[in-house]
């Protein structure tokens, strides 16, 4: 029995899935190994001073961001999916543009606008003349600033996923609500929202992971969260062990949240796209103040999330055009595109390989293993990169000890190494995106193909690939945007003389030259927006 099981499972698919899972698990292994090492006195100081503050702030930040993204993400998705009002078709895709703005660039814009003597002050002075207008400008900094910056730059996850789910919702379900005499509010709360829960939760969990692992925005706004603790431990107290332990707790917390959610919804059965869900829904036409309200709501979200940072960055680029002309555009663009191209190829190829392997081997063990791949996305990028470097160094010095072969320079500070860390970071995004596509293909479809004489490879080419095409395309776009925006990993892993738009923007911002950072930032936004616009139809497309 045992032998037979082994025979059945150990094949090329199983092995490749296993290897991917192990690579992706490197950072978790490294940071959990911190429990075998000693920490500095900072762990005591931290506990005596700000640990509770940090945890409290992290929670406030998390709750704030989750609430805000829920309201704007679900709100927009609801209005656009179920109502017909002025601009609805425009907002449908325009709201996705928020993906193009990284949280750190949003933070720059927010701070530049609302700071003392910032852009808002200039506007007020232009209108009202001299005076200390600073007193009347809301201070969108600190916790509030961080919540706003993070929320408006990542609410797109909630919006897109919820909208797709709403779109698939059966008209029958909605008619049922009417039939039962529910008010619109009750239909929304009792039928529409619960039915979309898995998608909403999927969106919110991405938001939660990004929020908890964010360092750019919180450090920019000076909000002391657990990531501050992680940084202080590492940078000021030179205690990477403690930093790793804290990251590990953060991971456990995120896993805890995900598991809790899983348990809580396990019993309920959720809709799967059924035939009648594709019927065009009868959108309710809005008139008068209701239409105006819907328009204003969506417009505000669009304005705040996209127009505002673009205008702020554009304004500076206009004021200081020399920074734009000084950019080595071709070099930056080719660097960015090379990273995007190779990372995406690698991620997609292995994402497919692993999903296909899991599908064929049906191994529970592999499936559980791949769910851990989410850890790459859930820990701060810098901690992940450092864990990777630590691992490579350990591997080279303790395990391999190849005298003539320089493992380290192969894996650290090369484009290959950089792409490999991207791989670890974004693998769960690729894997889950493709998995979502695969979940829609019933397993009996595969069996039918085998029975029609199709080999496994041919089944993949002829049946899976055409069906997965849209999912894969969508994943490529998401990955591309993430990679264009990625900062901390690129900073530490990159080779000599290698810059991207993100690192250039950061370099200026870190010298307090936000106005110079605007030029690379606006280029970054342009590229991401281009990616989004090319495919907006696809993202919104109502896949079968």
């Amino acid at each position: 029995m045992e032998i037979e099981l082994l025979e059945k499972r150990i094949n090329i698919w199983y092995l490749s899935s296993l290897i991917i899972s192990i690579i992706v698990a490197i950072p978790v292994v490294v940071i959990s190994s911190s429990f075998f090492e000693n920490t500095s006195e900072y762990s005591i100081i931290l506990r005596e001073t700000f640990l509770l503050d940090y945890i409290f702030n992290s929670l406030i930040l998390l709750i704030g961001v989750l609430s805000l993204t829920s309201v704007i993400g679900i709100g927009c998705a609801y209005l656009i999916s179920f109502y017909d009002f002025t601009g609805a078709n425009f907002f449908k895709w325009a709201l996705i543009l928020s993906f193009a703005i990284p949280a750190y660039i949003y933070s720059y814009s927010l701070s530049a606008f609302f700071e003392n003597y910032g852009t808002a002050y200039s506007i007020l002075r232009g209108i009202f003349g001299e005076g200390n207008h600073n007193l009347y400008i809301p201070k969108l900094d600190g916790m509030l600033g961080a919540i706003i910056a993070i929320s408006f730059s990542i609410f797109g996850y909630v919006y897109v996923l919820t909208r797709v789910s709403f779109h698939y919702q059966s008209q029958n379900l909605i008619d049922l609500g009417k039939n039962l005499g529910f008010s619109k509010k009750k239909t929304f709360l009792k039928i529409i929202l619960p039915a979309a829960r898995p998608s909403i939760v999927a969106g919110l969990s991405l938001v939660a992971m990004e929020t908890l692992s964010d360092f750019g925005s919180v450090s920019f706004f000076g909000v002391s969260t657990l990531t501050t603790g992680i940084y202080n431990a590492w940078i000021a107290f030179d205690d990477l062990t403690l930093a790793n332990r804290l990251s590990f707790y953060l991971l456990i917390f995120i896993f805890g949240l995900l598991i809790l959610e899983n348990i809580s919804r396990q019993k309920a059965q959720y809709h799967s796209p059924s035939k009648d869900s594709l019927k065009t829904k009868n959108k309710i036409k809005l008139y008068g103040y209701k239409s105006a309200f819907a328009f204003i709501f969506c417009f505000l979200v669009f304005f705040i999330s996209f127009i505002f940072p673009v205008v702020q960055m554009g304004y500076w680029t206009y004021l200081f055009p020399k920074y734009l002309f000084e950019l080595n555009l071709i070099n930056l663009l080719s660097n960015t595109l090379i990273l995007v191209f190779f990372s995406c190829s690698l991620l997609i190829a292995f994402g497919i390989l692993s999903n296909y392997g899991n599908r064929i081997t049906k191994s529970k063990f592999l499936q559980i293993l791949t769910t851990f791949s989410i850890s790459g996305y859930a820990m701060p990028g810098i901690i992940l990169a450092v864990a990777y470097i630590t691992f490579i160094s350990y591997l080279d010095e303790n395990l391999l000890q190849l005298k003539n072969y320089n493992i380290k320079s192969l894996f650290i500070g090369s484009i290959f190494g950089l792409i490999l860390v991207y791989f670890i970071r974004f693998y769960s995004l690729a894997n889950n995106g493709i998995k979502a596509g695969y979940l829609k293909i019933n397993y009996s479809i595969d069996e039918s193909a085998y029975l029609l004489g199709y080999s496994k490879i041919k089944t993949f080419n002829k049946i899976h690939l055409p069906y997965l095409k849209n999912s894969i395309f969508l994943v490529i776009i998401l990955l591309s945007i993430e990679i264009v925006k990625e900062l901390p990993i690129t900073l530490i892993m990159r080779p000599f003389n290698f810059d991207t738009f993100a690192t250039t923007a950061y370099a200026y911002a870190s010298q307090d030259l936000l106005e110079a950072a605007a030029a690379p930032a606006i280029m970054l936004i342009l590229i991401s927006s281009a990616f989004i616009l090319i495919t907006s139809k696809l993202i919104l497309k109502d896949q079968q």
Partner: protein
Amino acid sequence: MKNYFEINNVTFAASKKNKVDNVSLKIENEGDTICLLGPSGIGKTTILRTIAGLEKIKSGSIILNGKTISSETIHVEPENRNISLSFQDNSLFPHYNVIDNIKFGVDRNKRKTKKIHLDDVIEFLHLENIKFKYPHQISSGEGQRASLARSLLSMPNLLLLDEPLSNIDQNFKEEIQVKLKQILREYKITTIIVTHDSYEAFYLGNKCGIILNSQLKQYDDPYNLHHFPNSIEVVNFLNKGTLIPATVIDEKSLENKDLGLIKGDFIKHYPKGSKVKLLLQPEDLEHDDKSNLKLDVVDRKFRGTNFIYTLKTQSDLLIQVFVHSHHIHQHDIDEKFGIKKPIHIDHIVCFD
């Protein structure tokens, strides 16, 4: 003589609950159709999946056309068996339209000399109107028909159909059954059909197997199954007759308290005076208004060609009787109904 298809001592198991033990059955000739009958959830689908090669077996063997395709050590991959399985929930490829889906089947039969024509299949399965629709745009019955078309057109060495007509509208169903039978015979496609509909099974199958309580209870031709069921379970499952207590009188007759003397030839010998359960089929009784054996009418079903009366004896036995429908009947519920005496049955089937 060599059998076309054999299952020898195979236990089919998808899970611990859902298994069929130690099955052996044969299909003698190429082109024969057999049907497997049984209540749902008993593991009929697992049998088909195993034959198709989607599940492996741990003991016994499955032999198709002289070649072992499954055994403890041999497992021919499904794609190399040339066995086609049409799933109960149709498994059309969602991103191809109906006609393209069906053409997947055609691709496979390219090497065959005698081919089923695509247009014929489309016609007899009434697929003309949905040819260019996508699977999500058609009903489940339409999907089943398209799936059936795909399987048929692949002209496999063995065709496996899992409840192929379960979702199909009643008005198409009989017509499709007839055409299906014709095509299977004409092109000599050996077929195993799983169904829970005994009429369908008896119509389509050269032989039928009854699967009950994790066992293949009886594997025989439809006539024998009906007339000579080998166990009480089979009788109960087919639900065509009633078992009534009777006492053996001599080698040609027995007696029931309510119905009196019953004559006929015993299938199996019982000693005089044995207490047995006699299988009484609806066609065994004959109506006779003049008879003094009067029973109460409990229910009357009008089936077009005939009536089915349910009658109650004095000791509360319920029995059924067929009566041709041209006979004018005024026997309403609670009225009396005469039965011709003495009752004569061709084959007396009794159980202990």
